């Protein structure tokens, strides 16, 4: 097995707000291996988006505070990096796609400027003018699997970034080259008429188009890790299907590892190799998608899968999880799910709660669940 691209160990994130301290992410650990897609699924407020933002350290601190943990990306512990070095990891190391395509592109610049900016930064990194901490990946036309030098930190002195010049004359050799690269990326995300799109502003594009541009920007840094935070939730169903198809096709062409956040079990089923289920800030189950979906080993996962409505009225009431998500500032002792759990025993209420361990009698060793009674979960009606 290759070394993981991303290793998260015991990550905990709090929000300190007037009303109290909210434990948004609690002791979350997972690994993401090269070329894999890890889906994180959970309900609103379960901390999945906070997790996604905490990895590249995009959280607003304060109110957020990363209490403890390790986020090791290609050998570098991002949480130990000084703040000014973070830009050297972003873009060419980690990039991100956000939920609302309307908000994630700068309304004041043309599409060309926004894609070109990302490409210019990558070139600055590659040329050594402003080296990154990790090297960008090779171009996408992989014929054989190959991983860039994992774990090697470029310890060159940092040359202050001059920032991308925004308006260079278009006739220079450089500019033509840049334009060609921008076009290449827009074609990569299946934009039909990239020459026209280049000169438009984000508000002149439809939602699906914007999200394609956003993916192009995210990929143009040739990152080794792409974090997709609910990338299709704001889109219509048919458009969502188009974007998901595009991402799946791209996954066969590029070797980026993806952390895919979604609240939609269906989207995760379609996109991910592995899935992590989050509840009230905790990762309660983790494993290969088909195993987790076919044979969930945490009562919450089971309840979540069952409550996806797929019945007609005549077929009786929909199964649903009783109760509601607990307040993140006053989590119950022990297992956070025990007040809603049918399997709850006395030991479930004792601190510390269950840790993520190999699920008893699960089909494979990679199937983990944070439940003392994971053996009994298949028996829940």
């Amino acid at each position, binding site marked *: 097995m290759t070394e993981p691209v991303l290793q998260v160990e015991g990550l905990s994130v709090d929000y300190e707000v007037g009303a109290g301290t909210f434990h948004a992410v609690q002791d979350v650990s997972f690994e993401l291996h090269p070329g894999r897609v890890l889906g994180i699924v959970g309900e609103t407020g379960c901390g999945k988006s906070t997790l996604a933002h905490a990895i*590249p350290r995009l959280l607003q601190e304060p109110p957020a505070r990363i209490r403890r943990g390790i986020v090791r990306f290609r050998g570098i512990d991002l949480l130990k990096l000084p703040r000014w070095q973070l830009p050297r990891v972003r873009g060419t190391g980690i990039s991100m796609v956000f939920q609302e395509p309307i908000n994630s592109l700068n*309304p004041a610049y043309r599409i060309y400027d926004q894609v070109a900016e990302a490409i210019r930064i990558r070139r600055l990194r590659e040329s050594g003018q402003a080296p990154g901490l990790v090297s960008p990946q090779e171009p996408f036309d992989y014929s054989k699997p190959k991983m860039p030098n994992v774990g090697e930190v470029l310890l060159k002195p940092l040359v202050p*970034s001059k*920032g991308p010049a925004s308006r260079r004359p278009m006739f220079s050799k450089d500019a033509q080259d840049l334009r060609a690269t921008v076009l290449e990326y827009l074609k990569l995300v299946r934009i039909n008429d990239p020459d026209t799109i280049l000169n438009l502003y984000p508000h002149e594009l439809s939602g699906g188009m914007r999200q394609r541009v956003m993916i192009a920007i*995210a990929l143009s840094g040739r990152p080794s890790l792409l974090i997709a935070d609910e990338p299709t939730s704001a889109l219509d169903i048919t458009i969502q299907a188009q974007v998901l198809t595009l991402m799946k096709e791209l996954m066969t062409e590029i070797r980026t590892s993806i952390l895919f956040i979604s609240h939609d079990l269906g989207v995760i089923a379609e996109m991910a190799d592995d899935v992590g289920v989050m509840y009230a800030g905790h990762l309660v189950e983790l494993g290969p998608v088909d195993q987790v979906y076919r044979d969930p080993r945490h009562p919450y996962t089971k309840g979540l899968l069952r409550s996806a409505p797929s019945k007609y009225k005549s077929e009786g009431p929909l199964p649903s999880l009783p109760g509601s998500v607990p307040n993140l500032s006053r989590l119950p002792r022990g297992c956070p799910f025990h007040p809603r759990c049918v399997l709850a025993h006395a030991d479930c209420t004792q601190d510390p709660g269950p840790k993520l361990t190999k699920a008893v009698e699960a089909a494979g060793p990679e199937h983990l669940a944070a439940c003392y009674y994971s053996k009994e979960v298949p028996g829940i009606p």
Partner: protein
Amino acid sequence: MVIFVGKRLLQLVPVLFGVVTITFFFTHVAVPNPCAAWTKARTPGAVQACVVTFGFDKPLSVQYTTYLQNLISGNWGTNSVQQPVLPSILRAFPETLELVFASLLLMVVLGIPLGVVAANGAGRWPDHLVRTFYLSGWATPTYLGGLILAIVVGPALGLPYTGDFSSAKPPGWEIVHMSVIDAMLRLDPGALADAILHLILPATALAFLNMGIATRMTRGSMLEILPMDFVKTARMKGLTNFWVLYRHALRNSLISTTTVLGIAAGGLLSGTVVIENIFRWPGIGTYAFNAIIGYEFAETIGIVIVFAVGVVLANLVADVLYGLLDPRVEWR
């Protein structure tokens, strides 16, 4: 865009008409006969002569229509000593414009970066510092700040504190009545330095009060923009904090700041009345002050017209800038 500007200029006409009408009736109803105040002699004969000359004996409606007709034909009336109003205003206005532009420049150059600094450190000490600074400016009455600058700071720094320097120039030296530009046109570096030195104190006094407007607006809109996804996108491209702030956040927050600067320009015009008086700046503020004190109605109305045009044009410029900065705006 041209149509937009044309339409807005067309809208200026009813506004001006309203402004003129309101000022005219207000002054003439409140003080139907200012002759008593004008003529120092106060002999009945002199007052009577004055009333006849200026037509204060005619019905108000007649006075109003006469005034409007004259106004449209370019005759803005005369003051109590029979000096035509328009030329004096046209001569004084550029001086004020120079002062206002200098203040605006100060507001933009100092106020906007301060707003960025405050927003970047929101809730921490840079923010508190900047806020205390601009709120202090806000809380300082213009006249107090002006007095302190003129009487205490000016002499201490050896800066000239009166604007009344043009008398030293040979007649006809001035071209546009803006000392800095005149000095440039005359290619006179000495005069240019002198003009800039003279500008520093009054422009600072004027800008200090209004600095808060630019800073506060920049801070506010930056705070609104910084948590937005496109700023995160910019960060995730690998841009450093400075470039994220400068290229992405500031560019978008300027869109709201320009609107406010347009409104602030109106406030600056008002402030000149006090500041010019303190610094003896020969602009329209001093002129307005004397006109108002002396019951000079023709002058007052003329000034109000000029000020109203100034306010409306400042807002128009701000709107045009807004449209140029924000590609989402449709010109209509």
